């Protein structure tokens, strides 16, 4: 399971980074989303992987680490906020510059 998760995180990161380095705003947004998944999973994994041990008192004999989950929960919501902000920025840039290049400039 650990190896699978590490693979997933690695692939998500690689694809996220690749998309972030594109010149158009939309791939950058997608890349950021993928990178958020990767980072959230990574933070989550710092609490170690446990099956059937939700951090609810009484639900499991030894619940998993709740702290990374709390951190990731807010990270997910903040990540949405950031994506939304960037999306609006992209639209504003589109209106101001007439294009969707990340530097508001056309590539030669």
């Amino acid at each position, binding site marked *: 399971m650990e190896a699978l998760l590490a693979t997933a995180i*690695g692939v998500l990161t690689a694809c996220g980074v690749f998309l972030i380095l594109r010149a158009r705003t939309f791939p950058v947004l997608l890349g950021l989303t993928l990178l958020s998944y990767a980072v959230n999973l990574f933070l989550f994994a710092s609490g170690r992987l446990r099956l059937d041990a939700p951090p609810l008192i009484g*639900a499991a004999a030894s619940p998993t680490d709740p702290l990374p989950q709390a951190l990731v929960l807010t990270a997910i919501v*903040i990540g949405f906020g950031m994506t939304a902000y960037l999306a609006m920025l992209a639209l504003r840039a589109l209106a101001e510059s007439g294009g969707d290049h990340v530097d508001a400039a056309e590539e030669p």
Partner: protein
Amino acid sequence: MELPINSSLLLAAIPATAFGACLLPLLLQRFGRAVTGLAATTVMASCLALLLPLTPAALAGQTELLHLAWLPTYGLDLNLRLDGLGLLFCLLILGIGLLVVLYAAWYLPSSDPLGRFYSILLLFMAAMLGVVLSENLLLLLVFWELTSLSSFLLVAYNSEKYESRIGARMALAVTGGGGLALLAGILLLGHIVGSYDLSAILAAGERVRTHRLYAPALMLILLGAFSKSAQFPFHFWLPNAMTAPTPVSAYLHSATMVKAGVFLLARLYPVLGSSDLWFWLVGGSGAITLVYGATIALFRHDIKGLLAYSTISHLGLITLLFGLDTPLSVIAGLFHIINHAIFKASLFMAAGVVDHECGTRDMRRVNGMFRYMPITATLAIIAAGSMAGVPLLNGFLSKEMFFAEAVSYPQFAAIGWALPLFATIAGMLAVAYSSRFVHDVFFNGEPIDLPRQPHEPPRWMRAPIELLVLLCLLVGILPAWTVGRLLEAAAGAALQGPLPDFHLALWHGFNQPLLMSLLALTSGVLIYALRRPLFAWQDQLPPMHPRTAFERFYRTLTKGARRMIALLDNGSLQRYCALLVGFVVLLGGWAFFSASGRSEARLPGVAADEAAVGALLVLLLGTLGATALYRNRLLALILVSVVGLAVTLTFIRLSAPDLALTQLAVEMGTIVLMLLVLYYLPARNTPASSARRLIRDLLLALLAGGGLALTTLQMLAAPSATISEFYLQQSLPGGGGANVVNVILVDFRGFDTLGEITVLAMVALASHALLDRLILHPPQRDADGRAWASEAHPLFLSMLMRPLLPLALTVSVYVFLRGHNAPGGGFVAGLITSVALVLQYLANGIAYAQPRMPRHAVRLLALGLCLTAGIGLASWPFGRPFLTSAHGHVHLPLIGDVELASAMVFDLGVYVVVVTVVVSVLAGLGQLSLRLDAPHEEA
């Protein structure tokens, strides 16, 4: 006897008064020059008055200490110290300061309101007092840098002149750079001793000198001291700083700031001195500076230039005396500090008078001034005599002590004649340039082509010079009676040990030093007599322009910096991201490969089943597909949402129900958001990236991905050390909830959550700013040329969604209420509600949904934040810290036993903020199309 508390208070009051009152002249400027000058005088005089009660103890060899904690963890405290050395410098700073204040009032043009000048001068004085009164070396450095800054302002006082600005900049660059070296040196010294307090450092001399870091610490500290005291090869800033108004030169460049460097030598002498390295570095630098400065001084045609190089030479002499490293030479150095300050300040003031009266300082034109200003001329001649070392004047005494030290110096027995010869040559040169100053300016025929008709200066402009020259005579004739005790006290502080047997007297008998003095006097005059061939010889030498060289260096440096910035900061987001990722990869790789203990770690075995492998496959397919097909935007978006679902499933499988719920709800919001963006973005095909860029990006991506994967494996293999035991144990008794994640969010770490929802609220506010008056033209056709569907809101969807809304709201209330004990809570409930509301927009259109929505997003945001912060504040009246929660059980009919916690109000605030943010952002984006003309809306 005075109470100790009183004297500590007095000690603290000196710099406090100086700093506190330094703006007084500027504030009183509008009442006229007289009031402004009086204010500056009063501040200086008050500092002097505060110092006087402390003087007897300091003269008796006692050290007054004051400890005030500032940043004790960093070793930086407001610790002050007054001993003999500090007293000597305080008297110089305040005494000459008072005279300079008086002098400047007459020197500066009457159009200058003086407020700015005096305020900077007082700031400088305060910083200088801080330097000499600091007990803590870091504090000393703070004041040290303040003197550099305030002297920059003073040198550039006539800021409309290019020369002034350049001179000030050079002075700041050199002394500021030296300050950096000094900081490093002080840090090393503090590291060796374990304290930055002088009391501890002065007692640790032996430990410091045998430490392996002694040499670098010494060199760095000397760099600071030498650059401040204009020692070769850092001397060049001082002549260029002569563009300062003459009162500034008299104060900073003769008596105080340039003495800060030698003060530091004296201060740290007990710790750093007494080693061969000290002897060669300090003595060598001092000796070179002494002769070099004296030689150049002879050839300067500008009066202030001559005085500046003479100052460099005399500072070299003082440095050399400290470098000779015997108790008597240190005493001679301290004595020369006093003497040089007195005669050089008066000479600068006299030069200012000549400049003021003649309009020029060129000695080739200013001649025969004796006839026009006999009194000033007499005063200047006496002071110049002191500079040359003529008997009966104070300069003679310290020069004699120097000669005596040179004769009796114990080292180099084989070449015992070298040091005396060297000293005599330096003395000859001093006589020569002093003769030139006296003869060229005051005699030597008639003035040539002066801009003004010279005459005696105003009475009060001359008064400071008169007083200083009187001191020259008094100290020169009655040294023991005038400065004996002060010098003993200062020497006691500088040596930190028993004083050698010495007595200040005019007549020591007919001995070798006297012979050397006579030789220097006669041959000095002879050198001056030979000046014409010397000047002719100097004229054909290649010209030296330290200023242009420095300027060139400075320009090259700034050009290099600009090029660097252009390389890193070229306005391309792609480059920034690539640099950022590359740097993180480098940093992570370095940390990864330099970490130890990797081999022992073993992966725990959570068995992977078919479902996990399947989920991974789906995730990989979605991720890679979206990346490969990112040009096909809609498809890529759908694939990314598949990835999101796979992540959600991962959370469910790995015991994180709250995360799964949140991720699922956020996923819906993200997709709607992305679709909206996609709707507006131009659909045209974009040019492909170049192969080079593709390779670079792929490489970065692979490195980043591989690195994070390896790091994850490494992390999972490492033994888990968690701080969560506390949360698990206290969740039920302390927070009143069984869902530990939710209790952490709203209770244990509520303050974090408060910060996070504030960030979210900012996003909503930013959406207002970004979308304000934004006009976008939605496309009429898609990328394949097909027209957009005219049926805006499918009836089926619209009919289905309306009854779904109450259902969804009920679910979110349920999820909210149970959140404290089961998966759910404010975040999840807020997201569910917002998705339900956004679906109304989608299904029925903005025209339908907008009027039915809660308005005033800003007020709702404020409400949510107030709820969270307010419930946190509510714990204060109960005497509990911010965000302490309370909880209890309430039995409600039908629903049963409900646990009510104050944290629920907090969660409600979170809920309100989340709903407002998501709805206002998405609705705001959706509304953009409404702003267009009717035909567009119809489409």
